[in-house]
């Protein structure tokens, strides 16, 4: 029945603290070549701690086995298809990892003299230029650490510009299909949020937008293609409406992987946007980070970008700190440089034509999945999709199986689940994004698994509702975890 996986043996492994025994060690330090210092004298006896109570004590082989065994309890892109919609789980090329570890770059100190950091600055300048070309924008800052951080930077830029024009305005408009970070960001930037309902076709309702936009509106935050995977066909018109009232258009670039080489936000009226380098540009998610969230802007917003900015004087790059209109820093130093290296390596490897091909493959894969699955699942929005497709669990729910249960059963078939219950405008959403990484064979296996589970729902819904059955951990009790939080280990 199950084509792809059979369970493999994983070993039990206690927590580090349970493994510890006094006196074991995994470290080596060289002999001290200077005289010892009395800690109590140097630091004040009251400032010196007795010990780090509870800290682990293990040998080197125990340490490597510990982490290796734990690692086998994870699913990963390296194991198979990871079709999390909106998260863009594409292959993470290993050359990127090696590039980021190049010694002179990995060991560069952010305060080393600029004359001795030219290689770093060159990498950053090259990436800035490439991202400006890809997005069709005029200037890029690489400082933000992740997508949500980029959003905050972008909204603060808008706020600074509007303030300079005399009125920062009061609210940000956000479609009901948006990522949760959008409203959270607007709130942190001091704005009220007004939700706008999507149209019946799952896109921005421009007529409704026209009614709402007034002098109180600072910006519209829109994801394009949106979280249904549908291109916002009226985006240019929306930009005109906003600009007509002195408001700005912010684009969440989480789905930029559907557009690279095909269309550029700068060409369809976007004033400011962020990119997630850990999505579109293949840097690894690493179990939840690090990311990088560069922000690209039109000329009018450039003076407000975070300081410092890269500047070329003669043949040398330098940091320009004298930026009187800057919103200030959003992060110490210059950005997640190690992530920036990886993204540039990806861009260099693909080149212009390769990036465009990746976009086309990503969209082809998603459209193919849609075509092959639409007979089995409810498709609430019929508009053409791009890099992802969102079904609902409508038909399966009739048998008492919800999207979350269905997703858990996918695990038994050797796939990571799709994104569950998002976007919120689709009840019981099943959001599938294959990325360009997957070949036809893996995708067909995924499709077969989806169809097979849909049949199980008809014949044996209980089997699906209690999945996964083949994992090391069975269904995890998240309710108890939240009700009685245990957030650290303590000795028994």
């Amino acid at each position, binding site marked *: 029945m199950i084509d792809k996986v059979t369970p493999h043996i994983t070993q039990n492994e206690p927590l580090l*603290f349970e493994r510890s025994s006094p006196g074991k*060690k*995994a470290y080596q330090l060289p002999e001290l070549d*200077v005289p010892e210092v009395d*800690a109590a004298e140097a*630091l004040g006896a009251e400032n010196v701690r007795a*010990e780090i109570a509870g800290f*682990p*004590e293990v040998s080197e082989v125990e340490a490597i086995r510990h*982490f290796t065994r734990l*690692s086998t309890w994870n*699913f*990963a892109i*390296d194991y198979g298809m*990871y079709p*999390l919609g909106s998260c863009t*789980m594409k292959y993470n090329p290993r050359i990127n990892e090696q*590039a980021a570890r190049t010694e002179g*770059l990995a*060991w*560069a100190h*952010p305060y080393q003299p600029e004359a001795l*950091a030219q290689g770093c600055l060159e990498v950053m300048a090259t990436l800035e230029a*490439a991202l400006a070309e890809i997005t069709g924008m005029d200037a890029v800052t690489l400082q933000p*650490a992740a997508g*949500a951080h980029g959003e905050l930077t972008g909204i603060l830029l808008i*706020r600074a510009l509007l303030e300079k024009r005399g009125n920062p305005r009061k609210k940000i408009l956000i479609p009901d299909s948006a*990522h949760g*970070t959008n409203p*959270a960001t607007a*709130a942190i*930037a001091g704005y009220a949020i007004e939700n706008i309902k999507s149209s019946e076709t799952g896109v921005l309702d421009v007529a409704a937008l026209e009614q709402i936009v007034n002098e109180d509106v600072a910006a519209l935050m829109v994801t394009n293609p949106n979280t249904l995977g549908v291109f916002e*066909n009226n985006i240019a018109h929306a930009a005109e409406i906003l600009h007509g009232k002195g408001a700005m258009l912010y684009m969440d670039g989480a789905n930029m992987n559907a557009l*690279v080489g095909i269309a550029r936000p700068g060409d369809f009226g976007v004033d400011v946007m962020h990119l997630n380098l850990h999505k579109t540009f293949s840097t690894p998610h*690493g*179990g*939840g980070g*690090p990311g990088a969230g560069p922000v690209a802007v039109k000329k009018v917003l450039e003076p407000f970008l*975070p300081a410092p900015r890269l500047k070329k004087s003669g043949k040398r790059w330098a940091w320009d700190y004298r930026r009187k209109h800057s919103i*200030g*820093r959003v*992060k*110490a130093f*210059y950005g997640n*440089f190690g992530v920036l290296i990886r993204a540039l*390596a990806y861009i260099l*490897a*693909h080149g212009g034509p390769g990036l465009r091909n990746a976009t086309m493959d990503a969209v082809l894969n998603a459209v*193919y999945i849609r*075509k092959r699955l639409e007979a089995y699942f409810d498709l609430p929005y019929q508009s053409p999709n791009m890099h992802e497709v969102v079904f609902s669990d409508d038909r399966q729910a009739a048998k008492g199986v919800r999207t979350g249960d269905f997703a858990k059963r996918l*695990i038994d078939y050797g796939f990571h689940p799709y994104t569950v219950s998002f976007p919120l405008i689709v009840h019981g959403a099943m959001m599938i994004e294959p990325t360009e990484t997957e070949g036809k064979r893996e995708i067909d296996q995924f499709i077969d698994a989806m169809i097979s589970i849909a049949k199980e729902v008809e014949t044996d819904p209980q089997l699906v509702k209690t999945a996964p059955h083949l*994992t090391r*951990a069975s269904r*995890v*009790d*998240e309710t108890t975890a*939240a009700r009685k*939080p245990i957030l*650290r*280990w303590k000795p028994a």
Partner: protein
Amino acid sequence: MLAACGVNSPEELFQHLPEAVRLDRPLDLPPGISEYEIVQYFRDRAGDTALGYASFLGAGVYNHYRPVLVDTVVSRGEFLTSYTPYQAEISQGTLTTIFEFQTMICQLTGMDVANASMYDGSTAVPEAAMMAVRATGKGRVVVARNVHPEYREVLHTYAKYQGMPVEEFGYASETGGIDLEDLERKMDDLTAAVIIQSPNFFGIVEQVKAAAEIAHKRGALLVVVFTEAVSLGILEPCPDADIVAGELQSFAISPSYGGPYAGIIATREKFLRQMPGRLAGQTTDSRGNRAFCLTLSTREQHIRREKATSNICTNQALIALMATVFMTVYGKQGLRELARQNLAKAHYLAGKLDLRFSGKYFNEFVVRAPETINKELLKKKIIGGLPLGRFYPELKDCMLLCATEMSKRADMDLIASHAAKPQAQPQEVIA
């Protein structure tokens, strides 16, 4: 596949995009290059850096040895190429290591709970301030001038639009520690948080207890920031702090020209619900075995949207894992031994130089020395200290130096030969 999609070419899949928005030319980027060429490209860039130089820079980013095990573990595809562990059943590896990370951060800081990481130390500071605002219902923050200057800049950026006034208080010119009288003056009953750093930006161990008393007397929380995590191997964490916001770069995270690093926030149990960021918690699976999952997500943006405690989503999981492996490798004895070596090296170098402040210091210190010595040292492939005039005009004749276990005695002697302290004048003895 094209046939199944009902098209003849992939281009047709984009026909529904309005003509006007479609790019009508190829991207102006060079064609792709091979793996070998990419390696060479970055090696060439690295040739135009400080490769081969010894460095005595600290100031929030430290040169510590990275045990080989760290990259061995984080290079495993299971950790490297997995997403945020929302699907607990197939993410127990990541979740267990986060739980261990949270535990070790609590053990190090003496706090009750710690989150799964923030972007870095600098962004952890405004997050801690906003947390204090939520916890106290007050709106104002005071921050010491000897907190890392770039961290303060980030705090000001975040605070500006939130109706969160930020005021700075001074440091004592003699000791380099916070000026308690100035702190007392800047306090009022609307203050939500007092933010100090220990060891502070000048490397001086702060008077945390005294600051806590002043903060608590006015109903404010004390936020203690750290940038040099190795100091926690030997320094007593302050039991009177309410929130600890720190940077773990010292724990096997490459300097990497400023990032990616990993920040943390740790706090008291009673402030748990105000904490930003992800948390892993212990529970059981349906067979009754111990298991872990992300928890208390009703604080977070994907559930609470505009009412969330923070907008943070992606954090620094893999970097936090580096720190976890580092803490495991060094362990209880090793971290202390490492801290002792740092202390010894710094005191060896500082002992030969003209110290600006009298406060107790760990592995960084401010010396009076003209910027010109850095030029001399560069000729010998040594990067000297950070000239402080750029951040503190009153310290324009001073620089911040750092010595770690990586600092060689010969290099330190060389620095001393360029910047030795003036010969001590015979002092008059007052009977």
